[in-house]
């Protein structure tokens, strides 16, 4: 029962917030949000590690070395050759936004992709992930640089996905806001690439799904080796809306993610599907949350982790059903496959159920490759290494099979590539 007191943290300087805001051309309302977030960080208190959220990863890991608000814009992001059909594409790198493409159909339908600094949507920022969410979210809110607003008007259905590519620099604090109008239907993929040894990322994404919207949001993290990053992606889902959140984690040295949704309106539905592949000395720490606040809401979560080398993964998941959310259903599943004697997995799938009219279950497993499966594949002439690949692919594919086609194909390709380099 020994408790670990909150760690006394080094001071975090945030001296250039006003200058940052001015240089980015923001309005006064946005600066006010930044200043309020900065106030939350003085003095800086790091979270108590007795709580599960920070049990396996030290909060100090993600603190920037210098003043994050002072970071000078880096080089212009790298070129990006599009080789697929997209409704829109945008690149966020070097602290700035470059809109690569908005398809004619999307443009005609009124889809907006623009610089979040100048979008004049201060009243919509922080509604899903307020600065008080956590200290990293507060740092992002105070000092984010480079942001994109995606707005799909009510009733619009997009045939092709919207792709966002976020390129990590030495220190990146990207911010994404996705607004899905009533009854809209589309897919948006947020891909994180780039970075290098000791690069830091603190990112926040908010997704607002209005009534009856259908949003497929994908978060694909494939940073270069050495990146230390924390990404928060949260959705607020209104009545009758459906949000599918998919998460694929491949890169970086140390990655912590906080992905989740509030089912705020009656009949809202959320599915979260994730895969993580770790090798070498990578450390992953994923947290998911499904908060049922309204009656007759349903959520489903399936998160799979495969680890080789000395990789470590921690997964903490929370399903909370509030007193008013009668008639709700929630399912949560976390499976971990350990492919080496030095890999390590932690799993804490949590439930907090505050009303009785619910159906709720969760399951978690940690296991090695089933020797019987290996034997079977060997009997079909597969070498052990090949057989292991087939099994891992199959293990992850059960989850990937539930994703929308473009995201699925993308992640499947990444999984296959990763398997062949192991």
């Amino acid at each position, binding site marked *: *029962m*020994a*408790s670990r*007191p909150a760690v006394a943290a080094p001071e975090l300087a945030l001296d250039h917030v006003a200058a940052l805001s001015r240089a980015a051309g923001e309005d006064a309302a946005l600066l006010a949000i930044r200043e309020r977030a900065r106030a939350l960080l003085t003095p800086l208190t790091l979270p*108590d590690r*007795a*709580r*599960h959220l920070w049990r396996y990863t030290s909060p100090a890991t993600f603190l920037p070395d210098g003043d994050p608000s002072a970071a000078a814009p880096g080089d212009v992001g790298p070129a990006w050759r599009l080789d697929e059909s997209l409704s829109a594409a945008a690149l966020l790198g070097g602290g700035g936004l470059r809109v690569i493409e908005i398809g004619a159909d999307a443009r005609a339908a009124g889809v907006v992709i623009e610089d979040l600094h100048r979008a004049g949507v201060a009243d919509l920022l922080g509604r899903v992930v307020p600065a008080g969410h956590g200290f990293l979210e507060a740092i992002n809110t105070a000092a984010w640089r480079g942001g994109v607003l995606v707005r799909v008007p009510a009733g619009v259905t997009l045939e092709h996905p919207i792709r966002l590519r976020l390129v990590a620099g030495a220190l990146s604090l990207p911010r994404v806001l996705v607004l899905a109008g009533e009854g809209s239907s589309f897919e948006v993929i947020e891909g994180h690439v780039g970075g290098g040894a000791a690069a830091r990322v603190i990112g926040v994404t908010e997704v607002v799904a209005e009534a009856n919207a259908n949003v497929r949001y994908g978060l694909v993290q494939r940073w270069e080796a050495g990146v230390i990053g924390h990404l928060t992606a949260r959705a607020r889902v209104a009545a009758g809306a459906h949000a599918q959140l998919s998460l694929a984690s491949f890169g970086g040295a140390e990655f912590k993610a906080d992905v989740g949704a509030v089912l705020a309106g009656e009949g809202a539905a959320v599915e979260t599907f994730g895969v993580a592949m770790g090798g070498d000395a990578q450390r992953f720490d994923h947290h998911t949350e499904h908060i049922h606040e309204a009656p007759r809401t349903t959520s489903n979560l399936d998160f799979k982790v495969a680890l080789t080398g000395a990789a470590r993964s921690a997964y903490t998941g929370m399903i909370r059903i509030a*007193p008013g959310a*009668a008639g709700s259903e929630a399912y949560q599943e976390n499976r*971990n496959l*350990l*492919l*080496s*004697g*030095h*890999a*390590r*997995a*932690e*799993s*804490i*799938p*949590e*439930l*907090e*159920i*505050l*009303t*009785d*009219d*619910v*159906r*709720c*279950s*969760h*399951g*978690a*497993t*940690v*296991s*090695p490759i089933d020797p019987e499966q290996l034997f079977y594949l060997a009997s079909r002439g597969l070498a052990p290494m090949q057989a292991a690949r087939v099994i891992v692919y199959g293990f992850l594919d059960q989850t990937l099979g539930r994703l929308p086609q473009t995201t699925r194909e993308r992640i499947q390709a990444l999984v296959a590539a990763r398997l062949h380099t192991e």
Partner: protein
Amino acid sequence: MASTPTVADIGSDYNRRYGFHDPEEYFMRTPKGLSHEVVEAISLLKKEPEWMRVFRHKALDIFLAKPMPTWGDTERLSSIDFDDITYYVRATEKQEKSWEDVPENVKRTFDRLGIPEAERKFLAGVSAQYESEVVYHSVKEELTKQGVIFLDMDSGLREHEEIVRRYFGTVIPSADNKFAALNSAVWSGGSFIYVPKNTEVAIPLQAYFRINAERMGQFERTLIIADEGAKVHYIEGCTAPVYSSSSLHSAVVELIAMKGARIRYTTIQNWSNNIFNLVTKRAVANEDAVVEWVDGNIGSGLTMKYPAVILKGERAHGEVLSIAFAGPGQHQDAGAKMIHLAPHTTSKITSKSISKGTGRSSYRGLVKIRNGAHGCKTSVQCDALLIGDAARTDTYPTMEIDEDQVSVEHEARVSKIGDEQLFYLRSRGLKDDQARLMIVNGFIEPFVKELPMEYAVELNRLIELEMEGSVG
């Protein structure tokens, strides 16, 4: 046993039968509050050896230095006023030798608890703890012949100091947690059992515990050692009178199962709703040993109890089977821990909980597999039943797996009593409350069937009582 009128009536009149309290008649009690003087007084009074006196004082320093837990039901925990508790009360002057010598008021307590006279003869040593010290203690002659030691902890320390000193505090050191430190400083009573090599204790050993004095902590200390190849089943049942202000119960139970030994520890815990039940229970299972905790939590205001097995030797097996019933205003924060240190160790946790009214039950568990402990298998299953839309259930399982050649499974399910189930039973002519009771009984059946019959009967009665008025 079911036909014995006294047993059959258990639970039918809770307040009268369990809520009574005898006027307090004490030969010795320490002043309220905790200090080195109180600890010194307890040790002096018990005429303990020097090492135990030092052990208590060190433990008190640890208790005072440790902060309160920052997890769990911190709101309720912070309402404990450690200065308002009497840490030691002794009911009678000396250890009674036979039932006839037990004072009248104590006997009356047992009568009202409904322990039938005949049952005492059947059962092995009935070690009944009244207040902080064991007042009645009889060990069947066969046990003595077998070399089995079954004493209260104080006598154990006096008569078998060498064994106690060797094992006391080795499974749960004083510094383990704040409440273990508290117990180590002020412990009194509890059971001490030693079963020699290859000895099988055929009948369960039982002890009844009881808190009587208002705001009096009960800090029993139990140590059970099953030597190589030995086998023992220990049963502990608790009831307490209903009082208006809070009492604290903080026990420490240590089990040591040597190579090939087998220990089963069964508890039915039925404290009254104002009691804090903060217990540390842990076992060490050596090579090929089996340790089973069968744990039922019905009463108390707040229970925090996580029976643990450290699977230290190869092929050791640990099991926890528990039920919790959280009625209105109660919080049952219970769970289990399995620490796999050796290869090919196996464990199983089955936890069932029922939350009714504003009751809250939480499963909080840990499964840890150390690197190198290959071939381990472990499964955790939690089922929660909710009755009423204000009921709450939480599941906080933790799995820390540091080895790849293992199989770990966790499953949890939450449900309410289904309308289809009720409809089916009503169509068979059952009334609503009967139907509900039947469903609840079916839900806890896997637990009940592991209990000795008299406990199963008592538990069913208690559940029936708790379920009264749950319709509508």
